């Protein structure tokens, strides 16, 4: 591996310079000639029928250029899947949560637009709302969507068979229920969008996105214009974490306002809108029943999960499956039965989020610890006995190729000093372990692959085109690194054109952990094809065979005789003089089972690679206040191959901060009658610099045979293993297994008190 010049190195990111200078343009920074300000009128009721909307006063207000309502949308419903099309872009019949879109306004300035919102008169007939998923399933009142009986939006059933028989054989069985409320993304950048129609009636859009092509197709459908006429443009993006993957009503409304006014329109979300009117993570109630043999090996598991999906489907079928998939990837189970129900409630819409189910994953690990405790097995040993090994199939029949799960456990155990600490720490001082896995992509039909084009310019620099989007995690740099490595250029010689639907090909998007594996792979192949052309020309000049050549530092040279070389720039010019341009394309399509479907057929090859990881956390709990001080976190992740350790470490640190420090200690939403009481950064408690512990990062490499350079996913799932590690550490510190997450001081204190009372009774 040491042959690489740029790959595998701690390379500072190419996008950093513009960002530290304040030059990087985010959507809200854009200013176009004649641009109007757009605002959204939202429902103040959780569930109500729309009787009438009168926009005449708003339209009459000087400075208001357009007011749009559901009438303008022709009632078209949208959904990620054909069977989940349940959301109108602007509601015409009913509103289903506080924040639902009922109208849009474009005006000359923000003040006028806000005034216009107040002048829109909407008559509602309030309907009984339902906020609790279990109540929603049993509800006798009006369904939230009449096509979905019992308010059940999605039911995923997975059954490998033999579950009941294996429970019969089990030596020990436990059944426990775990709960966790909703969580939010709180991307640093509040959602914003700019849209306009150009002189050729093409719709141009700038907005944060998890994949520009995921935005262009629904917009092309909605406006009934050809796909090429929807141009989603590249823009700097201030974070996504799974929350910006799909089209949102505001995208449509902004474009519609632009169309009606024939002017550019910008809509910036307030922090509150970003919280309640984009997406949130699902609240979950999960019951795990697990049967093990005498050695702690899992023979049978039955998991039932009720997920509060909020008002609309979003990525429902995916979100209902992924918590289970993470579990079945990381742990072997002889047999398993899963029933996941996503239930509609009159709350904000839930979608994909980095931590797929706190209650689910942390519950599972807690239960494993309880079983290990019962059997007298160390938690680390318990995991080693049950964790995934390479060359196996998951319960839903995905072949797992590269897998260094046990190595991540061993390395985290060593670095954290687990052996010296487990069972030996003083009271209220604890250590815990969490392990998790995530899939690198999933079957996405025609959008499952990525394609890249590379062209050489006459100055010897190269332009690389790719559909991969950078949400902030460093995808742009990843593409540049790969292209520079393969082409023998320096990173500054690579000009990246990416995430633009007009110029770049379709790509799966950057929300299913495939950016490197698929998009980076495509660039690698394109670059190799391009290099072949360069070598063909260079070989003639140097009078050697092309396969004796290598490229590095802007030179092509003979491998065994490096003195014999020619600058790449010269090769390009010679090629051009010989009537041949230097360019190439390359694409990568992961070989997955295209018949696999989330609900209808949840079996078959899910993706080509899985990443695995372990997080060990050490905490101290104040027994008087229940407050937790995190002393040290050690995260070890099998990333296949570390393309850029500097970037990887940043992913590890960010993931464990969001999933562990925030997700397991302080982050959750509070509600009153469907109103979110903490939609802002003051009230939703994100971790701060002064609250963070010491972090140890361990990059584990398994060199995936299919990933580019052996690389796969780069650390997202640490958000989950960290959540699990945090909860395990707190449980260990207080000597109580917790079943309600996150572990806030009040819950911890109550558990401590209860334990004390029980021991006093004895």
């Amino acid at each position, binding site marked *: 591996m040491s042959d690489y010049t740029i790959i595998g190195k701690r390379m*500072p990111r190419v996008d950093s310079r513009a960002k530290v*200078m304040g030059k990087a343009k985010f959507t809200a920074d854009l200013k176009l000639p004649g641009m109007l300000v757009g605002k959204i009128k939202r429902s103040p009721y959780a569930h109500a029928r729309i009787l009438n909307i009168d926009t005449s006063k708003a339209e009459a207000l000087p400075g208001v250029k357009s007011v749009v309502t559901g009438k303008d949308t022709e009632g078209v419903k949208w959904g990620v899947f054909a069977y989940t099309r349940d959301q109108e872009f602007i509601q015409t019949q009913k509103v289903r949560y506080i924040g639902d879109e009922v109208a849009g306004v474009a005006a000359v300035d923000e003040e006028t637009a806000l005034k216009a919102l107040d002048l829109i008169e909407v008559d509602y007939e309030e309907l009984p709302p339902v906020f609790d998923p279990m109540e929603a399933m049993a509800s006798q009142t009006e369904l939230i969507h009449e096509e979905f009986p019992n308010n059940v939006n999605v039911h995923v059933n997975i059954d490998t068979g033999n579950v009941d028989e294996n429970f019969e054989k089990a030596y020990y069985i436990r059944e426990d229920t775990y709960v966790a409320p909703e969580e939010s993304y709180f991307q*640093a950048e509040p959602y914003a969008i700019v849209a306009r129609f150009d002189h050729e009636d093409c719709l141009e859009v700038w907005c944060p996105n998890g994949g520009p092509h995921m935005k262009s197709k629904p917009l092309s459908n909605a406006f009934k214009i050809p796909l090429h006429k929807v141009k989603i443009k590249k823009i700097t993006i201030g974070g996504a974490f799974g929350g910006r993957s799909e089209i949102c009503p505001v995208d449509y409304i902004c474009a519609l306002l632009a169309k009606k006014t024939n002017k550019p329109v910008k809509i910036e979300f307030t922090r509150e809108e970003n919280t309640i009117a984009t997406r949130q993570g699902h609240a979950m109630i999960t019951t795990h029943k697990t049967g093990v043999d005498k050695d702690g090996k899992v023979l049978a598991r039955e998991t039932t999960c009720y997920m509060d999906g909020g008002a609309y489907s979003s990525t429902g079928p995916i979100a209902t499956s992924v918590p289970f998939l993470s579990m079945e990837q990381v742990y072997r189970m002889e047999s398993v039965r899963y029933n996941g129900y996503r239930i509609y409630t009159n709350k904000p819409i839930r979608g994909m989020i980095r931590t797929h189910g706190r209650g689910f994953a942390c519950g599972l690990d807690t239960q494993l610890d309880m079983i290990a405790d019962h059997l007298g097995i160390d938690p680390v040993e318990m995991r080693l006995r049950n964790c995934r090994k390479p060359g196996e199939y998951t319960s839903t029949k995905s072949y797992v190729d590269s897998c260094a799960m046990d190595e991540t456990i061993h390395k985290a155990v060593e670095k954290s000093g687990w052996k010296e600490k487990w069972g030996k720490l003083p009271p209220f001082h604890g250590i815990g372990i969490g392990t998790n896995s995530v899939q690198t992509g999933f079957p996405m039909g025609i959008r499952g692959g990525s394609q890249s084009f590379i062209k050489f310019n006459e100055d010897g620099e190269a332009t690389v085109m790719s559909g991969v989007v950078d949400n902030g995690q460093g995808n742009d740099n990843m593409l540049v690194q790969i292209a520079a490595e393969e082409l023998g250029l320096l990173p500054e010689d690579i000009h990246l054109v990416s995430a633009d639907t007009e110029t770049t090909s379709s790509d799966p998007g950057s929300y299913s952990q495939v950016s490197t594996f698929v998009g980076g792979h495509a660039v690698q192949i394109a670059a190799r094809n391009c290099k072949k052309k360069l070598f063909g020309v260079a070989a003639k000049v140097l009078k050697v065979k092309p396969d004796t050549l290598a490229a590095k530092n802007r030179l092509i040279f003979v491998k065994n005789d490096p003195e014999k070389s020619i600058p790449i720039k010269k090769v390009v010019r010679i090629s051009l003089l010989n009537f041949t341009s230097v360019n190439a394309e390359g694409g990568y399509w992961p070989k997955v089972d295209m018949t696999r479907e989330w609900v209808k057929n949840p079996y078959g090859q899910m993706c080509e690679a899985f990443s695995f990881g372990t997080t060990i956390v050490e905490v101290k709990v104040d027994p008087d206040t229940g407050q937790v001080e995190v002393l040290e976190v050690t995260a070890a992740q099998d990333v296949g191959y570390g393309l850029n350790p500097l970037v990887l470490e940043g992913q590890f640190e960010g993931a464990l*901060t*969001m999933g562990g420090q925030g997700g397991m200690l302080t982050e959750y939403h509070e509600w009153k009658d469907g109103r979110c009481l903490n939609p802002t950064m003051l009230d939703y408690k994100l971790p701060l610099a002064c609250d963070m512990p010491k972090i140890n990062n361990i990059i584990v490499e398994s060199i995936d045979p299919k990933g580019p350079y052996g690389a796969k996913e780069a650390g997202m799932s640490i958000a989950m293993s960290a959540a699990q590690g945090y909860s395990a550490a707190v449980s260990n510190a207080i000597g109580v297994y917790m079943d309600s997450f996150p572990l806030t001081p009040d819950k911890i204190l109550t558990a401590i008190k209860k334990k004390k009372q029980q021991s006093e009774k004895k």
Partner: protein
Amino acid sequence: MEKIQITLDINNKPYDVRVYPNDTLLEVLRDELDLTGSKESCGEGVCGSCTVHMDGKPVRSCLTLALEAVGSKIKTVEGLASGEDLSDLQQSFIDHGAVQCGFCTPGMLMSADALLNVNPRPDEKTIRKALAGNICRCTGYAKIVEAVAHAGNPQDHCPDCKTGSKTVSKTKE
């Protein structure tokens, strides 16, 4: 309500601008003067993305009226570099991987810069406290803290400290 003509001293340059009394400094910087480096993330003084310096001290420009800034020396993220020459702090942020999505970065830099101006060699605890008013959702702060600690004080054992290896802006032939 009428606009008022004022002059703001920003990054050592006078800017004549007409503002409403209810215009915040952040709005004037971004909307009137095209200095869009300062960001609005929360709008209520919590996240620190809009942090600028007023007379050397970090302030939330989203909770400062433009009129209140008259007479003060204002410095924004655009004023950290000298032309294309980055400050040690900016360079350190790049070298240590302290920037991910970059939305909190300008505010983070301004808080850190204010700290380094009064305390050029802060310890880790001091840095974390000084940055407590700046929320970052991507990095977990570890690399930001390292970047601040090593800005202008490169450390031999640090794999990312590159003394004197400033990235120069790319010049096209």
